[in-house]
């Protein structure tokens, strides 16, 4: 194949290319046509070329929704640029659609703008009469909306190489996009080989043929050609999605047991773990249900093994009783909540930041616990290691709140240099010191050492009932008060060690936006764009949700207005029934109002989509009464 790629490469050198800073590309298809594999590959190839990348999956709710339907759109958005990319961006510049019907859902979601290129499979023009009519009407509509349409004979071209075009179009499209955006064909071929590494040579070869054919076809038939210069990156980089980063974090934390029950969008983290965790000294246990999954992890942790459970909101709901036990009995445990839309089973494949208050307060009684929220894919990796350390030091369950956007989003970051110091310390199995009790709470910090089965002299019976320092069921009326104080004091002790959040922008101004989790990139990009237009707006992002980061009140006081930006539900003033008295606030806003006694507003919505900078800019225009969007 090397000969043919050289031929093509030399051909492309004659093409005139427009230099662009970045591009937003979508590939949209029916489920099962491999759009996501195509987009992830494009992202990886671009990351390998030194470009900034962010990908977002477009996932239907069903495994196999009806073909050629609005609800069935399955696909991916890839944003790639010369600089670091931190979010999904605003409107798409180019869309490849394997049928035109799947685009309607994206148009409803305002994903495109006049001038967006639509590259549409044209086999539908010659399909059944009904399809043909629908196809023509759609094309007319798209033209009216100002999109630039190119009809592409994808199936016809693919059938030259494979007998089933459904299994080939994605790699042909990848080749096409590699040509349009000047992607390195050698890197692309390596990527294709890597995707199909477990398949036969024959399969690999036919996919390579498709890649080159798509590339060649675009070279000969398309007029738009771009190049996105990249900076040579310093040091080594890796590119992966948030669930893969979580799985690597689990191993790098030296965690010996991942106990889980399948739930979207958390499950793929355990798929990623399944490949390697056993050679990294750990094991996956797929439990009979969510409750057993956490109970199993708690049992292992009680017995001195490091454990994690990975789940999503409905799983957290089921695990809540055991979480309370872990708090009460002070068992170290990492709980990763890959949040999805709620309540109930809600939006399984879609993004929401809806579990903050439920993990904070959802327990029988007062159950103080540690909660972290990574904002990037890189943090998904490092926060698991941090969580494990905190869990052990503070004898506490520690939550890591990611979400569907981080879980499936692909982003490059500097390759972590795995250190043995990241691994959990081996459990001390020496004889338990005479006189030390199972819950020998330090009066200042609430911290105590933990005896492990196997340790002579440390025998105690852990209980979820109120208990004294020796873990005996409490009959002394003062003990429950003292024990509750000790458990709570651990959070205060941890808070003492935290730094104040860093403000993005000026230290004072008209408005401060406060975010948490995956929205960081979109908020900061919107703030930067607004500041270029003269808006006095800054932002800060909270990573420690419990205990809450220190120093917030004095920061808030320097801004005329403070508001949170979140992906969860809140009422908006202006609705006929909603007043300041009955308004329900977004979750972080609610929490920060209680924490700082500041009148904090919020901007939130639950469309199941990541927040884009443009949506935040539109909100800023209204809030600040300024003209911020060209």
């Amino acid at each position, binding site marked *: 194949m090397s000969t043919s790629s050289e031929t093509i490469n030399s051909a492309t050198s004659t093409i005139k290319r427009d230099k662009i800073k970045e591009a937003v590309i979508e590939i949209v298809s029916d489920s099962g046509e491999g759009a996501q594999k195509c987009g992830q590959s494009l992202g990886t190839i671009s990351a390998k070329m030194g470009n900034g990348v962010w990908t977002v999956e477009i996932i239907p709710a069903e495994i196999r929704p009806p073909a050629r339907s609005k609800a069935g759109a399955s696909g991916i958005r890839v944003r790639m640029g010369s600089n670091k990319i931190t979010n999904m961006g605003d409107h798409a510049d180019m869309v490849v659609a394997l049928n035109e019907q799947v685009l309607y859902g994206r148009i409803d979601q305002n994903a495109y703008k006049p001038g967006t290129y639509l590259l549409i499979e044209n086999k539908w023009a010659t399909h059944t009469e009904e399809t043909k009519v629908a196809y023509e009407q759609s094309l007319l509509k798209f033209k009216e909306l100002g999109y630039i349409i190119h009809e592409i004979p994808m199936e016809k071209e693919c059938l030259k190489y494979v007998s089933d075009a459904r299994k080939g179009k994605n790699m042909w499209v990848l080749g096409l996009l590699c040509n349009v955006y000047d992607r390195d064909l050698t890197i692309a071929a390596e990527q294709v080989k890597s995707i199909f590494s477990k398949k036969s040579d024959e399969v690999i070869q036919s996919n390579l043929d498709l890649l080159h054919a798509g590339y060649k076809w675009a070279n000969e038939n398309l007029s738009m050609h771009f190049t996105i210069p990249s900076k040579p990156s310093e040091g080594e980089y890796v590119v992966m999605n948030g669930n893969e980063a979580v799985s690597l974090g689990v191993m790098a934390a030296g965690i010996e047991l991942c106990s889980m029950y399948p739930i979207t969008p958390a499950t793929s983290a355990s798929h990623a773990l399944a490949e390697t965790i056993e050679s*990294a000294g750990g094991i996956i246990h797929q439990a009979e249900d969510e409750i057993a999954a956490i109970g199993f992890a708690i049992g*292992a942790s009680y017995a001195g093994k490091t454990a994690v459970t990975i789940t999503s909101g409905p799983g957290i709901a089921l695990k809540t009783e055991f979480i309370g036990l872990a708090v009460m009995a002070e068992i170290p445990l990492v709980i990763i909540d890959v949040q999805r839309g709620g309540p109930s089973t809600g939006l399984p494949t879609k993004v929401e930041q809806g579990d903050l208050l439920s993990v904070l307060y959802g327990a029988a009684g007062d159950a103080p616990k540690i909660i972290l929220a990574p904002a990037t894919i890189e943090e998904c990796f490092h926060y698991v290691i941090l969580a494990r350390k905190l869990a052990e030091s503070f004898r506490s369950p520690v939550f890591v709140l990611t979400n569907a956007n981080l879980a499936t989003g692909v982003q490059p970051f500097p390759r972590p240099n795995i250190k043995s110091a990241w691994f959990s310390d081996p459990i001390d199995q020496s004889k338990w010191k005479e006189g030390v009790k199972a819950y020998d709470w330090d009066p200042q910090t609430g911290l105590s050492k933990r005896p492990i089965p196997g340790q002579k002299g440390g*025998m105690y019976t852990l209980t979820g009932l109120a208990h004294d320092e020796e873990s005996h069921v409490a009959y002394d009326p003062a003990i429950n008060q003292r024990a509750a104080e000790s458990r709570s004091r651990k959070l205060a002790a941890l808070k003492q060690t935290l730094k104040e959040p860093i403000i993005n922008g000026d230290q004072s101004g008209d408005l401060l936006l406060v975010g948490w989790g995956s929205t960081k990139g979109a908020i900061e990009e919107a703030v930067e764009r607004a500041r270029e237009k003269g808006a006095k707006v800054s932002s800060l992002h909270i990573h420690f949700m419990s205990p809450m980061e220190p120093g917030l009140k004095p920061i808030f006081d320097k801004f005329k207005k403070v508001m949170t930006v979140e992906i969860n539900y809140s009422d908006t003033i202006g609705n006929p029934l909603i007043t300041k008295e009955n308004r329900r606030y977004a979750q972080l806003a609610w929490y920060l109002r209680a924490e700082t006694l500041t009148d904090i507003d919020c901007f939130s919505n639950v469309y199941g989509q990541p927040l884009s900078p443009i949506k935040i800019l539109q909100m800023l225009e209204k809030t600040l009464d300024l003209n911020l969007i060209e």
Partner: protein
Amino acid sequence: MITLKPDFCDIEPLDGHLLSTDDYASSEARWCSGCGAHTILHSVQKLCSDEQLPPEKTVFVSGIGCSSRFPHYMKTYGFHGLHGRAFPVASGVKFRRPDLNVFVITGDGDCCSIGAGHWVHAIRYNMKMVVLLFDNSIYGLTKKQTSPTSPIGTVSNTHPTGSVLPPINPIQATLGLPNVSFVAQTVDWKLAHLEATLKKAFDHPGLAFVRIVQRCPVWMRDTYEPTVKDPNAITVLHHDEGIVLGEDALKKFRHVKDHDPADIVKAREVAELVKTTTPIGLFYQNKNASRYDEYGAHNLGISVEDRIDAINSHMDKYAI
């Protein structure tokens, strides 16, 4: 110090003294006077002493209920957790700590009602542990509500005119599960049988499920007194591979039935006898059933260097 093991075969040095039953006793048990759990507690302490189990290597895991207070009365490690959830915790303990002796203490509500899902799967996992189901057919701790094993017609606070559903037969249910490897039944008031059953269960290489029919003198006196007093009420299962009693002990039972514990089909038939008598003994044993704790232990002790190498080579797949 050098001592002889009771069977006078092996001579082994001991770094401490021989552990007596008192060495396994913690605080005084707070069960009602006459409760069958007291007998079981002493029998378990005797087992620990007979086997010289290191207290620090022994873990009793329980759920919630009268029975589940058990770990507090043992001077070993204990885990008194949530209602119905003893099995997942015990499984988590055993999965990565095969060096520990794990016991599960559960009651009829804990195991067969709220924890029934876990019960089914624990049998399937078949990890080496002894499960003692304290079955008094009533909810005692919450003061007399119907249990899943209450006989039909049981008058309770939730069913003042008598319960309406037929009871679960835990033996039969367990025998119906895949990978089941040890199922026995005994009663709290036949000490020799109880002790012999515990010993047999402890020696079993997988999960030993033992249902102990247990008296509740406060809420179920009427149900149990006839069984305790009537020598015809119990049928003891007899076999060389089963629970072997001495001749004197065996003589005390009027009904003895030959039953080969290798035969699961017969075991299920014998479990049906519960409608007319209380069969006690070993219903079924298969020492070769696959064990999940063997899978759980297979990669323990990999060096940090090897683990880092594995992670790094995995990370290479994401390298750019």
